[in-house]
């Protein structure tokens, strides 16, 4: 027999039928159903397949702890694998499929794995790769591929996620997690005191266990009690159903994920699929309830074996009876009310209580039609595709049993005790405390502003849970100063008359059959004992070896059973054996929610220079440089990048070129001690730099390694304009701030980043002066009046007006050149005006590729050379360092390793054979001696129109050791090797005559 819908009862809406599809077959459920309850009502028993053995699995729970009914929902780009049918809200048109099976969950060829069980014991993968089991490693590797295909979880979509997600930063006074009786009362008490309260629950309906309660709350009908509470809370607290608090973090911060479109058949595209809500609370109440444990007995994974509370929940909440003949199994008093509820729903119920003493609750149960068998335990289930029979035995104590008889049943509903959900507290490193009395872990003490209430604190009775929640809510209000009364004493753990019988496994001699501890990962009791025999004594090692608790449910059901079996095997108590540690997330969180809007192009910001549009309009192709889009080259029709760059280089050398240099870092250094600050951070002197002059400077890190370079312009006695490399703009700013705020706090200097405040171009080439002198007539451009490294401010004529410009005569290209900056808003005008004038003079725009070639020809270094490993001497800049003053890094730059004679130092490189090429990143080796490290590396290359293929690099001992000698640029990745000659890095105009005069 299979499950079926009752005529009445539950909170499903029988007036609202919903059509859905299971493996392509149309079925009908009701609004308020989960996928699991609808499948059960439709008579489906096999919903999933086991991970390793592919055994058929049915619904095992009614919540997040599900280990059996794991399915794939949706299709195409919206396909989501490994979804718990037990928490999936049914909507019209929902389409779900079984997974881990081919061709279907009812008929699966992969089930052969079950017969190969001996190969799949604990540590299977470790042993396979260590070659213990097999013939040769190769054969086993092939075999392993097959097994991997057969054993596994559902497949995720390979397409891009079409949905969108958002992140909300939120605050509240009190966050209440869980909307059962405890959470509802805690939220109500806190809201009454005037607190801003968020009440979040993972379920789509609020009420927790009250939605399908076994008994009254005190004397009140649970449904009435619930609706009264919810009505009072509406508007008074922020109610968040479909919202999982998946993690607790430092600073009373909680991670929530709201499933915004869950429950909507056709959600508006305006809605995000999920919303990550990061809540900074002042206090938290955890009313997270408890999860019922199963018991490991023979073939306890058969479809039809579920927890007892789950069977009752299907009957009472969803109006679905899981079967007609139910064996209810309990080790505790809680099982009686559930057995009665199932009998009242019309099932024929036999209650097996592992305890021999006649229970006081038995009489009432029998009155309700339940057959009570004291001292009875389940031994072995039968029925691979749906339970048919249960072998019942006498409990001999400690889980050992003597089989007595077979009962025809279609459901076995098991209560092995309850585990309070201490997971969130565990995220805060609070160790749970084992209670022998209640056979469960109770939440430990915390010094953080977190309260635990209700079943999460081991309180089993609904009315006591409500009182416990109210006390927690009042305690929170009092701690926040919102309420001045006396907090009532909260009910302590328990609520049962007779003590629980701690049974974790039932075994009977000579009765084979797998006894599952973790059905989702197919971990059995034998696996745990095997792990112990093989020396895995620590529970942490046992978990990793057997993979217990590593499936998507993260051991919500199996961890305690595994721990108890390990304790038994090693002859220790449970607290001596270990504890169970949970880490976020509580339930799986989609990657989309965590990423939020930061995906695709929004993964990081895109930075555009102030003249970007104008540069694009000039025909630029762009390249990504860090966050920046930089003009790379300006192709004429039919030109390749290499051709365009060669033309642009030749243009700069023969005429004039204009390049956007707005990405340079720019820092305003102001104040009476500005010169002193610069003098301390640059290796060369800045104290005596005259007003109206610029100087090239290099900074070291304090450990003596080269850090950054750039020019700094003196605008007045107390004001400098510092430029940094594009890449280090932020880091240089941070260094100056750190020094001024933490170390040199007596210096009267203010630094501000003005990188985005200025746009700039470099104008380079023999005709640069002619172009600029026409555009900026209020500056005297003669060599005498505007010498090399001079700084001048003026106005550039634009139409009838003028824009302010700040200029300096600097050269990165080796030609006569100026940098011209203007306030960012004028950037486009600057670019258009200068480019137009340059074109008139026979020049044009050039990009980053040509810029790089020009500097390699001159032997100028960039971040490719100043790479965080090289010293001033390595870079050939040793002579810049002042001997007259100390500076940042000067004390440590002479450590033995940094002054070693044969350190790799800057050299120029060119191929011996004409037309040969080599790549940056190649290793420099002695000819005929290719070794892993070689004697250096290639840092930059350039395709020079006048010199051919050239490069810069570092070779041990530098030019002194290698000038005129040959080295091989080895590029093992591309299987290339090029014979090079080592030359001076100053390929072009070494005397610098072209930039002067």
């Amino acid at each position, binding site marked *: 027999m299979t499950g079926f819908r009752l005529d009445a009862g539950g909170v499903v809406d029988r007036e609202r039928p919903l059509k859905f599809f299971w493996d392509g077959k149309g079925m009908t459920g009701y609004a308020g159903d989960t996928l699991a309850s609808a499948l059960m009502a439709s008579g489906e028993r096999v919903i999933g397949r086991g991970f390793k053995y592919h055994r058929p699995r049915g619904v095992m729970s009614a919540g997040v702890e599900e280990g059996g009914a794991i399915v794939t929902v949706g299709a195409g780009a919206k396909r989501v694998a490994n979804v718990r049918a037990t928490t999936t809200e049914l909507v019209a048109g929902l389409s779900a499929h079984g997974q881990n099976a081919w061709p279907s969950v009812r008929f699966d060829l992969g089930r052969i794995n079950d017969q190969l069980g001996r190969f799949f014991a604990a540590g299977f993968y470790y042993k396979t790769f260590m070659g213990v089991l097999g013939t040769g490693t190769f054969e086993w590797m092939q075999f392993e591929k097959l097994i991997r295909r057969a054993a596994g979880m559902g497949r995720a979509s390979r397409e891009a996620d079409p949905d969108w997600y958002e992140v909300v930063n939120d605050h509240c006074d009190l966050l209440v997690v869980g909307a059962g009786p405890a959470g509802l009362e805690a939220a109500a008490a806190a809201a009454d005191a005037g607190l801003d309260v968020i009440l979040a629950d993972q379920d789509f309906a609020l009420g927790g266990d009250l939605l399908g309660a076994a008994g009254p709350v005190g004397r009140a009908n649970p449904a009435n009690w619930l609706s009264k509470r919810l009505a009072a809370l509406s508007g008074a607290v922020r109610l968040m159903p479909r919202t999982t608090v998946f993690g607790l*973090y*430092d*600073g*009373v*911060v909680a991670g929530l994920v709201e499933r915004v479109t869950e429950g909507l058949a056709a959600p508006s595209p305006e809605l995000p699929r999920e919303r990550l809500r*990061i809540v*900074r609370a002042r206090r938290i109440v955890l009313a997270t309830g408890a999860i019922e444990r199963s018991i490991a007995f023979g073939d306890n994974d058969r479809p039809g074996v579920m927890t007892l509370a789950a069977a009752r929940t299907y009957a009472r909440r969803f109006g679905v009876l899981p079967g007609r003949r139910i064996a209810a199994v309990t080790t505790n008093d809680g099982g009686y009310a559930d057995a009665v509820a199932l009998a009242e729903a019309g099932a024929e119920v036999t209650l097996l209580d592992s305890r021999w003493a006649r229970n006081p609750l038995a009489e009432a149960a029998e009155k309700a039609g339940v057959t009570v068998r004291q001292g009875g335990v389940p031994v072995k289930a039968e029925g691979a595709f749906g339970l048919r029979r249960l072998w019942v035995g006498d409990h001999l104590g400690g889980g050992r049993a003597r089989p007595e008889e077979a009962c025809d049943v279609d459901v076995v509903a098991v209560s092995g005790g309850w585990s309070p959900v201490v997971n969130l507290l565990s995220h805060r490193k609070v160790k749970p405390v084992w209670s022998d009395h209640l056979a469960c872990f109770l939440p430990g003490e915390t*010094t953080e502003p977190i309260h635990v209430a209700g079943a999460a604190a081991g309180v089993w009775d609904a009315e006591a849970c409500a009182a416990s929640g109210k006390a927690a809510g009042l305690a929170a209000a009092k701690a926040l100063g919102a309420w001045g009364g006396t907090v009532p004493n909260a009910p302590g753990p328990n609520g049962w008359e007779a003590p629980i019988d701690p049974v974790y496994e039932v075994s009977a001699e000579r009765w084979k059959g797998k006894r599952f501890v973790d059905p989702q990962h197919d971990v059995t009791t034998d696996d745990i004992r095997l792990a112990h025999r093989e020396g895995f004594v620590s529970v942490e090692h046992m978990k990793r070896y057997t993979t217990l608790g590593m499936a998507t449910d993260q051991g919500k059901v199996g961890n305690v059973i595994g721990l108890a079996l390990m304790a038994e095997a090693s002859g220790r108590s449970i607290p001596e054996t270990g504890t169970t540690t949970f880490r976020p997330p509580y339930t799986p969180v989609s990657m989309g929610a965590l990423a939020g809007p930061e995906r695709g192009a929004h993964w990081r910001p895109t930075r555009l220079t102030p003249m970007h549009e104008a540069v694009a309009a000039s025909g630029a192709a762009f390249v990504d440089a860090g966050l920046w889009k930089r003009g790379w080259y300006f192709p004429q029709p039919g030109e390749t990048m290499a051709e365009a760059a060669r033309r642009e280089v030749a243009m700069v050398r023969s005429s004039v070129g204009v390049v956007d240099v707005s990405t340079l870092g720019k820092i305003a250094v102001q104040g009476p001690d500005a010169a002193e600050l610069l003098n*301390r951070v640059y290796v060369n002197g800045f104290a005596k730099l005259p007003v109206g002059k610029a100087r090239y400077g290099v900074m070291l890190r*304090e*450990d003596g390694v080269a850090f950054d370079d750039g020019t700094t312009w003196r605008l007045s006695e107390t004001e400098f304009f510092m430029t940094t490399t594009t890449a280090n703009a932020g880091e240089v700013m*941070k260094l100056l*701030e*750190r020094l*001024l*705020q*933490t*170390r040199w*706090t007596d210096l009267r200097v203010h630094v501000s980043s003005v990188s985005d405040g200025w746009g700039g171009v470099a104008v380079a080439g023999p005709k640069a002066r002619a172009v600029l002198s026409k555009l900026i007539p209020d500056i005297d451009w003669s060599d005498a009046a505007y010498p090399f490294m001079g700084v001048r401010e003026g106005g550039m004529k634009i139409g009838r007006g003028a824009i302010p410009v700040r200029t300096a005569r600097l050269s990165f290209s080796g030609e006569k050149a100026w940098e011209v900056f203007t306030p960012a808003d004028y950037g486009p005008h600057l670019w258009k005006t200068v480019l137009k004038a340059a074109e008139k003079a026979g020049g044009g725009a050039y990009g980053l590729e040509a810029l790089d070639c020009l500097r390699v020809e001159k032997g100028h270094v960039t971040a490719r050379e100043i790479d965080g490993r090289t010293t001033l001497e390595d870079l050939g800049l040793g002579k810049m360092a002042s001997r007259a003053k*100390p*500076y*940042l890094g*000067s*004390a*440590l730059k*002479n*450590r033995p390793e940094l002054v070693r004679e044969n350190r790799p130092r800057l050299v120029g490189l060119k191929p011996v054979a004409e037309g040969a090429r080599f790549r940056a990143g190649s290793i420099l080796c002695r000819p005929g001696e290719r070794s892993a490290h070689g004697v250096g590396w290639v840092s930059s290359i350039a395709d020079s129109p006048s010199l051919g293929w050239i490069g810069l690099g570092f070779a041990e001992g530098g030019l002194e050791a290698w000038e005129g000698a040959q080295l091989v640029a080895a590029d093992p990745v591309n299987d290339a090797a090029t014979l090079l000659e080592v030359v001076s890095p100053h390929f072009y105009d070494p005397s610098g005559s072209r930039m002067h005069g």
Partner: protein
Amino acid sequence: MLRIPCPFCGLRDHAEFDYEGDATVTYPPLDAPEDAWFEAVFLRENPRGRHREYWRHTQGCGAYLIVERDVTTHEIFGAELAHPGMASAMEGAA
């Protein structure tokens, strides 16, 4: 998420800040010998419990703060401006 009370901006997420190292290190003058600099740059105590450390409010006011934090529990006891002049100016303003 650690929550740092910035004297300028109020209680903020640590994601807005950059950790900037041990605030108990005294750096020697620039002309001090190599040994003194070696010690300041490379040698660190790593005691259990309370630390004084620099945090820069990079995504906020930009100020360098000295934050007192227990590295075992992550409890934060307070934050002050690293620059003594700014710190006393704040006190005057309060």
